[in-house]
């Protein structure tokens, strides 16, 4: 995962006005719980306008990639709430979500604004991450949830 590429993507998100929140290992990283990852997990507000903002941001970050046009509001707002985008750089990929199961949508996830190199980044709060991660099936998410609970003294009703 290339540092400059991540910053470029986050900057493009901000410039496009995308309504999003980071929810994966990158969000954990902002909270001081550092582990490696290959992807950026991004939960976005599920509106056609916001999906267009996402495409605008990705066009800015990955100029000329025709695959970006395959990201469609009809999918993300309909039958396919999870879209994985592999950019041409090949260093990382983005998991873009409009809902997580039936429980979590953008509106349900508490977020805070952090900053890196002058770029504002919306990051799920530790409690919100904990709620998301304890509800999933992956072992790594359970480890993340345990780390969040310990670091931030979170309770199960967090």
């Amino acid at each position, binding site marked *: *995962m290339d*540092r400059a590429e991540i910053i470029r993507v986050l900057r493009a998100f901000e410039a496009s006005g995308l309504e999003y929140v980071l929810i994966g290992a990158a969000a954990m990283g902002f909270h001081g719980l550092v582990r490696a990852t290959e992807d950026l997990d991004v939960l976005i507000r599920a509106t056609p306008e916001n999906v267009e903002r996402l495409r605008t941001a990705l066009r800015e970050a990955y100029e000329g990639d025709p695959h970006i046009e395959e990201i469609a509001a009809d999918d993300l707002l309909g039958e396919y709430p999870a*879209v994985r985008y592999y950019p041409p750089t090949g260093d990382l990929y983005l998991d873009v979500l409009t809902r997580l199961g039936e429980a979590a949508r953008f509106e349900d996830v508490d977020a805070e604004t952090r900053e890196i190199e002058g770029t504002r980044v919306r990051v799920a709060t530790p409690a919100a991450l904990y709620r998301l991660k304890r509800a999933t099936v992956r072992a790594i998410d359970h480890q993340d949830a345990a780390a969040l609970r310990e670091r931030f003294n979170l309770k199960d009703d967090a």
Partner: protein
Amino acid sequence: MRVQKFRSIQDMNLAPVSPSRRPDFERFLRHCAQYWKIAPKVYPRGVFKFRSIEEAEKARGSR
């Protein structure tokens, strides 16, 4: 970096870990960069659609 000495592994495990002065997200980025150096991957290109995050996870696992 200063050297710490311990009489046992137990003492070593009890010693406080000095917090990094580097911002948390910077540490995350450096960690991911190291991971990439050790275990680079070859990804496909393009856009893949999934009906659920679980389905997306399965696809990742089968790659």
